[in-house]
């Protein structure tokens, strides 16, 4: 595996950032945030991966088997839960912004500036 998961993670991370920086729609922003979040999953799982490793279930483990790191899987799971909460909240905010301000374009939500 080596460096590849981290290259993928970096590409996803930068792609998400690029999307947020250029988007004209806040729903799209939320999607881009999910893309960025996926890069953290890839990076975390890449850290704990063992080539030819088995699932980290230690019961009835055959002799000589090398399980992958279970800690990063737990971290990824926590990360997924957190991301769902954040995404739900941001989507709710976008809906409210659209309902009250009539637009989901960040360039046109311009009450605050200066």
């Amino acid at each position: 595996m080596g460096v590849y998961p981290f290259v993928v993670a970096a590409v996803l991370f930068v792609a998400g950032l690029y999307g947020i920086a250029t988007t004209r729609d806040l729903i799209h922003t939320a999607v881009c945030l999910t893309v960025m979040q996926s890069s953290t999953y890839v990076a975390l799982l890449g850290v704990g991966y063992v080539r030819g490793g088995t699932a980290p279930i230690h019961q009835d483990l055959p002799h000589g088997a090398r399980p992958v790191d279970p800690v990063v899987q737990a971290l990824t799971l926590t990360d997924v839960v957190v991301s769902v909460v954040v995404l739900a909240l941001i989507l709710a905010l976008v809906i409210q912004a659209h309902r009250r301000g009539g637009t989901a374009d960040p360039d046109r939500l311009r009450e605050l500036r200066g």
Partner: protein
Amino acid sequence: MNDLLPLLVAVPLLSAAALAGLGAFIPGRVTELVAVGVAAATSVLAFIVLLDARAHDLVYWFGGWQPSGGHALGIAFTVNELDAGIACLVCVLAVAALTFSIRYFDDAGHLFQVLVLVFLAGMTGFSITGDLFNLFVFFELMTVSGYALCGYRVERPSVMQGTLNFAILNTIGAFFVVMGIALLYGRTGALNLAQIGERLSHQPADATTGIAFALLCVGFLVKAGAIPFHFWLSDAYAVAAAPAGALFAGVMSDLGYHALARVYWTCFRDSVAGDAGHIRAVLLTVGVVTAVGGAVMCYLQADLKRQLAFLVVSHGGASLTMAGLLNAEGMSASTAYVISDGVLKGAVFLALGLTVAALHGSNELQLRGRGRQRRLLAVGVVLGVASVGMGALPGFGTWRAMSLSAGAARSAGLGWLPFVVAATTAVTVGTLLRSYARVFLGWGRGSDPALAGEGDDEIGGESEERSAPSRWLVLAPALLVAAGFALGLAPPLAGHAVAAGRVFVDTHAYAGQVLRGVVPPAHAVPAAHVGATAWLTSALTLALAVLTASWGLWGDRLRAARRAESRPPSATVRALHAVHSGVVSDYVVWLTGGAAALCVTLSAIAR
């Protein structure tokens, strides 16, 4: 008494869950009182922990999973006296905010109280955890409840815009933290802060370590609102309702700096020991730029709450210039400053909320002279005293903190630093005094083209509550100001801060205690005395603040006398306003640029 530590998080979190479930069945007034009671109980716990932590750090292992043979197996809370002090600040501000929210909203519903309690749990957990991933979880817990608190008044588009900017930028900041954690875990196989520090110290620092540190830095600096990551902060704090804003401004931002310092000392200190000078230079640069930039932007605002938001940015930068010295005295000074300044910032935010609600506006220029009413007398007094107190008025806790910071800067060979902080503080405090004089005394003119949002109405929706807030609400900020004064009156507190700072930076003793249970001997508490520099900077700050305020009020009259016409704002001022565009895409570009610069610099340093 280590068993009390998890209660600091569990009590508010479980109460929040209970209130959320039962809130629909019990009267709103009862919910409000229960929430205040829970926050008060948490404060008592935090103070007991603070007293316990005086002798040495406290360590608590969840589920009794003690480390075995120097290897951390479980998850720990580790509390230094400075961390406990921050936790106390969090709890006290939460009590003030919850007390204030009684009778403040027309129809807050019980969910506001629930959110404040969850926010409280997130912030206390964030300040006392000893585990890196746990730190991220609490980071998210407080951030998510922060979004909800910030966007509580959903009916205003401006509130939604500010909250979205807050949510998007902070979520990206959290990703940086996770990436940093992934790299560190890949390198060390550990998540416990002390364990990471030990493993990193056995291997030479390389670019990966540098990038991991840089990613964590970016995440925490976004939370803290350091320039150029600060853009969300001015938008979010300007639209937050007063009780939530008091918590944001009083402590949430500064928690980012505190976490940065904790991670640096516990994890990276040994592995980058040879490059500490360069890292200090980077942190101090960010701190000075933030302090100066925040102060300038603060001066250029017409909206009262936006002024305070940029004041938070600037004062956060000031605390980074202290912690960034990377010595024990700097850490003590920074924490003492965060605590003593935090209660005053909270007080100002609450008092401003009352002013805005009473006067139906938050624009300094439009409100000129409208604060000259008998019913606003107490609010005005509290605002004025808190503003001057932030300017390190002798007697206040901020003054003690400034005196500590002068000593810290001198021992790092940077004796000029306190004067920079004095100048930036003078500008922020001067701006508060300017708006105070304009609104409550009616001084100065009713227009100033240099100020942003000159013609705007109130943006936060504070004035739309139907009923005027109760006049007793002013007691909450008044008590916070009194607390800020009490912090300065007790000289032993400064000595304790110094001793606690020494424990905080003693990484080896920390690792020994966390991983092997070796309790280090207690440090002696030195007598802290206030040096000549502190008197000088204090006098300088207050004099400059009065000058700034006068220039803001009558400066254009002087100019007009010379040039016979008042000029439009200069190109620099216009550019500064234009940069704060309120568009989240622009902010992300700034964040990316800042993050890239930090990553390149820090990985080059660690190589």
